[in-house]
């Protein structure tokens, strides 16, 4: 996993509540057996005016000029800002894969759906929960300043605005540790394989019908 320490980038405003994983990456793209290549189809039904299918020549497709990520001023954005319950719906990890592959490293929202939130951390993508008034403020700043960029410092759990104003955020200690060091969960858990074996021994003695 790509480590995440600090990141500075332009904000893109996705001003909607309940952005679901079907919108993030529509089902027809889940047929891939790979982890990569989902970025071009991120928000496919919102970004394009035609119906997208895997393997299409993207240069021939008609983009929706009204959709925020198609606007020139957000072309280089790497931080997505949204409203409440971002990532609701299915457990598809293709959603964070698509967001990361598109070029985003951070998502700021009022709240996230549980499974999506957990999936982000496994893919070097940092989801940050902020109070509604802070999110409103950041939306305003993004709309009124072209190329509005902020710095996210995970180590110090701080967002630094161009005005030097700092916004602190919460992050779980274990997830922060894994993200900063780019650690693979499986490798960490494997270090406890003796504990797992010991657990199994007692557990199956007690619950012998599960054997």
């Amino acid at each position: 996993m790509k480590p995440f320490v600090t990141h500075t980038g332009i904000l893109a405003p996705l001003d909607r509540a309940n952005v679901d994983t079907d919108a993030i990456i529509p089902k027809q793209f889940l047929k891939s057996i790979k982890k990569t290549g989902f970025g071009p189809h991120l928000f496919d039904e919102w970004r394009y005016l035609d119906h997208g299918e895997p393997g299409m020549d993207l240069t021939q497709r008609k983009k929706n000029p009204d959709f925020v990520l198609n606007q020139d001023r957000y072309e280089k954005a790497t931080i997505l800002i949204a409203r409440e319950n971002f990532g609701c719906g299915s457990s598809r990890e293709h959603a964070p894969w698509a967001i990361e592959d598109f070029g985003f490293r951070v998502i700021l929202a009022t709240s996230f759906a549980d499974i999506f939130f957990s999936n982000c951390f496994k893919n070097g993508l940092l989801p940050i929960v902020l109070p509604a008034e802070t999110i409103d403020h950041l939306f305003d700043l993004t709309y009124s300043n072209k190329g509005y960029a902020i710095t996210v410092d995970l180590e110090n759990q701080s967002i630094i605005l161009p005005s030097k104003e700092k916004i602190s955020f919460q992050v779980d200690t274990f997830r922060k540790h894994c993200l900063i060091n780019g650690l693979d969960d499986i490798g960490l858990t494997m270090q406890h394989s003796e504990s797992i074996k010991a657990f199994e021994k007692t557990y199956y003695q007690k619950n012998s019908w599960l054997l």
Partner: protein
Amino acid sequence: MQPKTLYEKLFESHIVREDAGTYLIYIDRHLVHEVTSPQAFEGLRINHRPVWRNKSVLAVPDHNVPTTDRSLGISDPISKIQVETLDENCKHFGLTQFPMNDNRQGIVHVIGPEQGSTLPGMTIVCGDSHTSTHGAFGALAMGIGTSEVEHVLATQCLILKKFKTMEVRVEGKLNKGITAKDIALALIGKIGTAGGTGYAIEFTGESIRTLSMESRMTICNMAIEAGARAGMVAVDEVTISYIENRPFSPKGEAFEKAKVYWKTLHSDKDAKFDKTITLNGNEILPQVTWGTSPEMVVGIDGMTPDPRKEDDLSKRKSIEDALAYMGLEPNLPVNQISVDKIFIGSCTNSRIEDLREAANVLKGKKIAKNIKLALVVPGSGLVKLQAEKEGLDKIFIDAGFEWREPGCSMCLAMNADRLESGERCASTSNRNFEGRQGQGGRTHLVSPSMAAAASVHGHFVDIRALS
């Protein structure tokens, strides 16, 4: 001893280790399907890791499979590769799979319980958010992402934090024609799709206790639509008699021993929940969603909302966007909404009881002229066989429905079953998101009997007025 909730009992009995509030939790059952597993198996291969406990896995292809004649195979080459990849992975890693042409094949959340593979007291995971379904058996069941699928395959464990606990108490008796689906939608209408975020929900109360296992599965299935990763119901005699004599369930002495433990799987009297929500069962009406989120729902006597009456600007915009996408006017009574297609199926409502409920409405009737397509997609090959034994297939076919092979089908439209842009569907599935059933498609979530009634009348009707 301090009284405990069911969730606490299930969680605590599976702790391998704890480190500052981060737990390593042992997983008993791992259900696997073709869409969210290939990258996990690839990860195992790259790192030369075996599957920790092959016996814990039950795999089945369901999302991509065709629901029409299967003797021809899968025509979509990309879907075909994904299903074949699951076949190969199961063979390579030595895992039990019910392949596409096995009569036990079906939707992963239907076949687990049907096979007795889902048992009380278990921790159950699957790379699918509707894994919450299995909580109906007094199990801790939740959806996980592909990285976690790989983690469980490799280590038999999951890294978890404790959820908060929510009791959803449904008091009183349900009125005739009111189903588990209506309870679930009424709850989501009340607390919203993020109302359960961070919580494990336990459904309690008289209305829940009187439900069959199929209905309890429907409710737990929809817990994720309320934002809760896990939903559960305490074990009782209904649970135990459902499990007895299933292919994978314990037999004889083992069953008797298990039963003693299973009967302890309920929240203790005086156990404290972080939150309690109460619904009055006899006030719940047949529910119909009007928008693009399951929380956008009203009773059958209700109307689409008027965004001008909403003061919160963000909510007003959500209502306007949803009405525009759904092609509906504000203040429109939902019983005036006509539909083009009917879908009876999905992990929410494709079990035998659901099919009986719909068939009961359709007996001797025909679908309305404006219905372009009406599909019944049984949840598994065995549900299909049982329905055929009872003659339900004939009722559906005589009414004008198509009787299909089992799978996820038009719930998420990964196979050929889908809505065309602008088409409106009465669907027994779980999500009415934009494009969920096909790009530009418009989904209204309802119970099986409400979907059947809409097929006969061509628009939504109050099921209570029909009987």
